[in-house]
C-alpha cells in the first residue's frame, strides 16, 4: 500500500483517500487474526463432526435398536414443552408489566429477570430436596401437624418445570423490549378501523412480537436440548445425560455418535429460525415517543398478580429460601459438614471460580473485537460473513459436547494444556465467545463510521483511532459483554465437571459434588455465594439493557 501511494502527490498522500478506499476492501491486520480466531472457535465443533462421522455403522445400528429412539423422544418432548411453556409465560408476564396497570410494574421488571442469577441446576436441587416423599415440605408440614403426601417431581414433569422457570426470563426480556418498541399509532389505527382488542392482539401485536418470541423460543429450545444438570437431577434421560454417562464410561464412539445427532437437531433449529425470520420480518416504524396506554386489568388484577408472584416465588424466592434453610440447618447439625466446606476452602473455591471466569470473559471480549469490527464495518463482505459464521458455530454445540470436542482436540495435540487450569478458561472462552461477539458487534453498530473516518483524515493511526475514538464509545458494550460471559462462566456446569483438574474445584463443582450425594447442607454455602455474587452483575446488565431501549 505504501509503495502505491509514493507515486502520488504529497497532498493525496497526506489525506490518504486512496488508502481509505483500499481499507474499505479488506485489511490484513484484521482479516488474518479474525480468520485465526474463527478457526480456533470452530475447532471443537469440527472435531466432533469428524469424530462422530467416523462412528461405525454397526454401532449406529445398535444404538438405533436400543437407546436412540427413547432418547430422541425424551429430548424432543422436553424441548417442545419447555419452549411452549417459556414463551407463553414470558409473553404473558411481559405484557402484564409493560402494558397493564398491574401494581408495581416499574420494579417488577428487574425482579422478573432476577431468576437468571440462579443456575438452573441449583433450582432443580432445591426442588428435589423440597418436594417428594420425606422432602423438606412434607417434614415442615408434619412439624405443623399436617400429614400430607407431597408428590415428587422426578421425570419429565420436574425437568420441564424447572427449565421453564429457568428460561422464561429470557423470553420476558426480549418480549418487553419488543413491546416497548411497538408503535402506539399502529394499535390505535387498528382499533379505529374497527378491530376488537383480541383481533388487534392477534393480527397486529403478535406479528410485531414474532421476531422476539421466535428468538426466545429458539433460546429456550436450545437450552432444554443442551441441559445436563436439571435432567440428571430429575432422573430424566436425554441425549445430554446419556452422552455424559457414555463419556464417563469411556464409550467415546457412542458418545460422539449421540453428540452428532444432538448437533444435527441444534442446527435444524437454528436453520429454521433464520428461515422463519426471513418470512416473518415485519417492518417496524421508529419508536414512538408517546408511551402506550396501559390496559386496566379490572377483575383480572387478582389472577394477574397471582401469576406474577407465583412465577417469581417458584423461580427465585423459594429456591433461595430453601438453600438458606439448608444452610442454617447445616450450621446446627455438625455431622453433615464434617467432611467439607470450611470457610477457607469456600473462599478458595470462590476465587477459583472467579478468576477463571474473569480471565475467560476478558479473553472472549478481547478476541471478539477484531471479527466484530470487520463484520460491523463491512457487513457485505462475503469472506467476513463466512468467518463470523465460523466463529459463532459453537452455538450449535451444547456445553457438554464442546467440552468433549475440546478434550479430544487437546488430548491429541496439546496434552499439557488439557491437564492444567487453562483448559477451564479455554472452554469458557470457546463456549461463550458467540455472546461476547454479539455484544461487541452491537456496540460497533452504534458507533457511526464517520467518526473513524474523521479521525483517520486527521492523521490518527489505527491503534490511536481504536484507543481514542472507538474504545470510549464501545465501552458500555464491552462491559455488558464481559459481564455476560463472566456470569455464564461462573455458573457453567457440564464442561467444568468434565474438565476441572485435580485439586481445582470451583463453586459449581462443590455444589454439584455435595448435592449429587444428597448433602444439601454442605452444598448450600457455595450455592448461595454463587447467587449473591452474581446478583449485582445481573442488575448491571439489566440497566444496560434498559438504557439501550430508552
Amino acid at each position, binding site marked *: 500500500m505504501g509503495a502505491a501511494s509514493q507515486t502520488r502527490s504529497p497532498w493525496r498522500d497526506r489525506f490518504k483517500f486512496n488508502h481509505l478506499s483500499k481499507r474499505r476492501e479488506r485489511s490484513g491486520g484484521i482479516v488474518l487474526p479474525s480468520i485465526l480466531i474463527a478457526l480456533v472457535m470452530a475447532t471443537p465443533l469440527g472435531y466432533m463432526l469428524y469424530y462422530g462421522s467416523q462412528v461405525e455403522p454397526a454401532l449406529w445400528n*445398535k*444404538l438405533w435398536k*436400543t*437407546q436412540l429412539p*427413547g432418547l430422541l423422544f425424551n429430548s424432543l418432548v422436553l424441548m417442545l414443552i419447555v419452549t411452549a411453556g417459556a414463551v407463553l409465560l414470558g409473553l404473558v408476564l411481559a405484557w402484564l408489566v409493560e402494558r397493564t396497570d398491574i401494581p408495581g410494574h416499574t420494579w417488577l421488571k428487574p425482579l422478573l429477570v432476577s431468576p437468571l442469577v440462579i443456575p438452573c441446576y441449583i433450582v432443580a436441587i432445591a426442588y428435589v430436596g423440597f418436594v*417428594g*416423599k*420425606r*422432602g423438606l415440605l412434607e*417434614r415442615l408440614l408434619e412439624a405443623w401437624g399436617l400429614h400430607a403426601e407431597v408428590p415428587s417431581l*422426578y421425570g419429565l414433569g420436574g425437568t420441564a418445570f424447572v427449565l421453564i422457570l429457568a428460561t422464561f426470563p429470557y423470553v420476558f426480556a426480549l418480549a418487553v423490549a419488543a413491546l416497548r418498541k411497538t408503535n402506539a399509532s399502529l394499535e390505535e389505527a387498528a382499533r379505529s378501523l374497527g378491530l376488537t382488542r383480541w383481533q388487534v392482539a392477534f393480527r397486529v401485536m403478535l406479528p410485531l412480537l414474532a421476531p422476539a418470541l421466535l428468538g426466545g423460543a429458539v433460546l429456550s429450545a436450545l437450552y432444554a436440548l443442551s441441559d445436563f444438570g436439571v435432567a*440428571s437431577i430429575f*432422573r430424566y*434421560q436425554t441425549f445430554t445425560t446419556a452422552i*455424559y*454417562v*457414555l*463419556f*464417563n*464410561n*469411556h464409550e467415546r464412539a*457412542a458418545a460422539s455418535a449421540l453428540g452428532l445427532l444432538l448437533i444435527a437437531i441444534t442446527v435444524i433449529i437454528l436453520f429454521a429460525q433464520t428461515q422463519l425470520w426471513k418470512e416473518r420480518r415485519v417492518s417496524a416504524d421508529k419508536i414512538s415517543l408517546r408511551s402506550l396506554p396501559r390496559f386496566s386489568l379490572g377483575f383480572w388484577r387478582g389472577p394477574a398478580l397471582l401469576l406474577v408472584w407465583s412465577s417469581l416465588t417458584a423461580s427465585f424466592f423459594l429456591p433461595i429460601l430453601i438453600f438458606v434453610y439448608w444452610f442454617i440447618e447445616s450450621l446446627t*447439625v455438625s455431622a453433615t459438614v*464434617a*467432611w*467439607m466446606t470450611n470457610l477457607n476452602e469456600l473462599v478458595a473455591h470462590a476465587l477459583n471460580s472467579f*478468576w*477463571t471466569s*474473569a*480471565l475467560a470473559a*476478558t*479473553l472472549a*471480549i*478481547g478476541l471478539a473485537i477484531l471479527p466484530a469490527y470487520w463484520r460491523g464495518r463491512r457487513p457485505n463482505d462475503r469472506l467476513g460473513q463466512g468467518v463470523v459464521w465460523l466463529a459463532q458455530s459453537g452455538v450449535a454445540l451444547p456445553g457438554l459436547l464442546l467440552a468433549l470436542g475440546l478434550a479430544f482436540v487437546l*488430548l491429541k495435540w496439546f*496434552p*499439557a494444556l*488439557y*491437564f*492444567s*487450569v*487453562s483448559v477451564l*478458561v479455554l472452554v469458557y472462552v470457546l463456549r461463550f465467545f458467540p455472546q461476547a461477539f454479539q455484544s461487541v458487534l452491537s456496540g460497533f453498530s452504534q458507533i457511526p463510521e464517520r467518526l473513524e473516518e474523521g479521525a483517520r483524515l486527521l492523521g490518527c493511526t489505527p491503534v490511536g483511532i481504536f484507543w481514542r475514538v472507538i*474504545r*470510549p464509545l464501545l*465501552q*458500555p458494550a*464491552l*462491559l455488558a459483554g*464481559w459481564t455476560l460471559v463472566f456470569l455464564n462462566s461462573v455458573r457453567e456446569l457440564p464442561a467444568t465437571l468434565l474438565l*476441572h*483438574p*485435580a*485439586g*481445582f474445584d470451583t463453586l459449581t463443582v462443590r455444589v454439584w*459434588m455435595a448435592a*449429587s*450425594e*444428597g*448433602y444439601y447442607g454442605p452444598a448450600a454455602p457455595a450455592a448461595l455465594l454463587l447467587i449473591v455474587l452474581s446478583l449485582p452483575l445481573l442488575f448491571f446488565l439489566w440497566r444496560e439493557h434498559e438504557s439501550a431501549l430508552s
Partner: protein
Amino acid sequence: MSLRLVRFISLSLILTLFLSFVGSLGIAQSSSGEIVIYSGRREPLLQPILELFEKETGIKTIVKYGSGSALAQQILEEEKALGRSADLFIHTETATFEFLRLQNALQPYSSESTRSTLVDMRARDGSWTGLSGRSRAILYNKNLVKASDLPNSIFDLTDSKWKGKIAATNSANDSFTAWVSALRLTIGEEPAKNFLLKLKENTTRLTNSHTDVRKAVGRGEFALGLINHYYYHIQLEEPDAAVRNVGIIFPDQKQTQIGTLILAAAGAILKNARNLSNAQKVLDFLTGTEGQKFFAEVNYEYPLRPAVPTRSDVLKVVQDSLNCNKTSAIACLKQFPLPLDALGAAAQKTRDLLVEIGW
C-alpha cells in the same frame, strides 16, 4: 468510572494470565511432597480418612473425585502424553485396577501393612491392594414389602410384580458394572443378557450414585434398591425417622444359589508416581489398623485386615440373615465363584453389553 472499569479489566487480564501461568505450573509439577490422588470413590466416604492421614503425617493430599473409569482413562492419557499422572488411584471396585494393570500403568507395592490384609483382596503381583470389602445387596422399604414377599435371589427381581418398584444406579457406577461382569462370568453370556433385559423392565435407573438409590428407597419411592451393603447402614443414620424403615437382603445365599459379589475398594500406586514414598505411606495407612478401623467403624465396610473386627451391627445383620456364627462378614457370605482379578478383562465387554441394552 468507565476508565476505571477498563483499567480494572486490563488489570484483571494481566493478573489472571499470571495466575493461570502459576496455577498451571502448580498443577503440572506439584512436587512439593503433596500427593495427587485420583479417586472414583465418593468424597464423603474417603475425604474424612484422608484428613485423618494428613493430620497424623503432615503430608498434604490433593484429590480429584470423579467417575472411576473416566479417571482411569485420564491416567492412561496422561501417562501417554506427559509421561506421568497422579501418584495414587483409589476406586470402589477392582476391575478398573485390573484394566490399568494390564495397560502397565501401575507399580506393585508390598509392605508389611499391605500384606496383612486378606490375600483374595489383593492383586497377585501387588499392583493394587484392597482397602475395604463390601457386598452387593438389596435394600428394601419395610413399609412397601411384606416379609413374606421378600425376594431371596436377584432372579426373583425379574418377576412382573416388581415392575417400577426397583431402583438401581445407571451404568456409570463401577460397582454395578463389576456386578454385571461377575454375573456374566458366572451364569454365562446369554442368560446374563436376558436377565438384565428383564430386570431393566422392572427397574428405574437413577443417577450413578448409590446414595440416590438408598434415599429413594428410604423415602418409599421404590420398594427395592440394588446397593452395596453399607448404604443400608448409612440410611439408618438419616435424621428423619420415617426414612429409616429399611431392611437389607443378601441375595442368593442358599446352597443351590450362586452367591453374591464381594467387591474390594482398593488403592494402587501409579507407575510414574512422583511422590512414591508418600503414596506408599497412604497405602500403609489405609491398610493399617487405624485406616481399617475407620473403614469398618465409620463407613460400615468389611475390614480386610483380619485383626480388625467388623462393626458389631454390620456383623449382626449378616449373621442374623444367614444364620451364621462366624465373626467375619466376609466368611459368612457365599460369594460368586470368581477371583476378583477375573473382572478386569471382562469390563469392556460388560460396558458394551450395557450400552447395547441401554442400561
